[in-house]
């Protein structure tokens, strides 16, 4: 588990997930490599919609329904953070 420590930016995104979904868990506890949906953090497509809205509010990035990378973007906290920092630049 070499990569399982959160970077600072991943911590920030993790906190956004916890607050926007009212998750009731410590943001530090989210494994950046674990899948966000179903088996991992147990989020579903409605949660994903909330996350997409929170991201657009905080970072001004619009995640669109026809984005071919949607499957990759929401794969894990790490993938999500990477997408946001790449698109924000």
């Amino acid at each position, binding site marked *: 588990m070499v990569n399982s420590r959160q970077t600072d930016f991943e911590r920030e995104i993790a906190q956004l997930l916890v607050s926007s979904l009212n998750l009731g868990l410590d943001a530090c506890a989210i494994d950046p490599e674990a899948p966000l949906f179903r088996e991992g953090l147990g989020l579903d497509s409605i949660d994903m919609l909330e996350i997409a*809205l929170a991201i657009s509010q905080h970072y001004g990035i619009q995640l669109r*329904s*026809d984005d071919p990378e949607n499957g990759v973007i929401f794969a894990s906290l790490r993938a999500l953070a990477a997408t946001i920092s790449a698109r924000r630049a």
Partner: protein
Amino acid sequence: MAQVWFEKRERGSRWALRAVRAVALRAGRRTARVLLWPITAYFFLALREGRIGLRRYYQALDGQRPTLGRLFGHYLTFARTVLDRVYLLASHRDAPRYEIRGFEAVASYLDCGQGVLLLGAHLGSFEAARAAAFLRPGLKIQIIMNTKVSRQLNEILMALNPEARESVVPLGGPASLLRVREFLAHGGLVGLMGDRVVAGETTYSADFLGATASFPLGPLRLAAALRAPVFFFTALYHAPVDGACRYELLFEPLCGPAPDVRARGEWMRQLGERYAQTLERFCRLAPDNWFNFYDFWQAPGADASCRRATRDPGDGDGPGSERPVDGSHATEDLGGRGKS
């Protein structure tokens, strides 16, 4: 053994549905309505579970055991609304007329470019409700549906109208909900059902016709995430007066757009309560429009193995259907998520 029987039955009813569709379009509504009597009688006799579920409903509604005549009339109403779906979808000259109530409040949101979420139920006609899209030029409607349920009936009916087929958003993929959100942002109408619990779904409890019933939490969460005003909607079927039956399209405000996440729990609690109360009021107004033919008050998960055994896997709609449960339900406190 059971598997073989199910498959046979699925083929059988598919053939019957296609036959009804063909006869309905060729012979017209008057003839088709006469043919509904023997068809309904067959299903009425063959599907005991549906009768038991309906009895429970009528006992909750007015405390009395319903007569066989009343139960049969209920089946007949269901059959008639299914038949009318054929005419509505095919834009046939025999398509029934409808009256509209309460659309002004919806329109005032649409005027500002704000889309509206219509929370419906298995009450009255789904297809007549779709007619809401014709209420003003350029208005579009999308229906969020669990396409795994009543797959067969929908396939056969939707073949009549490619546009209606396109307006159905299958529940599931994350991208599909983003699309719904964009659709609402462009001032569209989005319909979804809020009464039936499907396998594995989280539920909430609400008082409904004098006892506690379980409702799916997903539609409330989705309504909250979509941040759109929520209306109850239904299209009630009314028996013929002077030979002409009609549908009544009803829109009732439930809640304004959801507040931010901290106040979300209270908002969903109110929405759930108002939804159940409104549903109850319309059940009392048109009792035979209730199309959940199973014991609605039975705790999800209770007796699941037995119910699974009697369920028709091909079609979750109509008197042959059982609530599709698998016993893995959780009742969630609306206040917090607690996913840890």
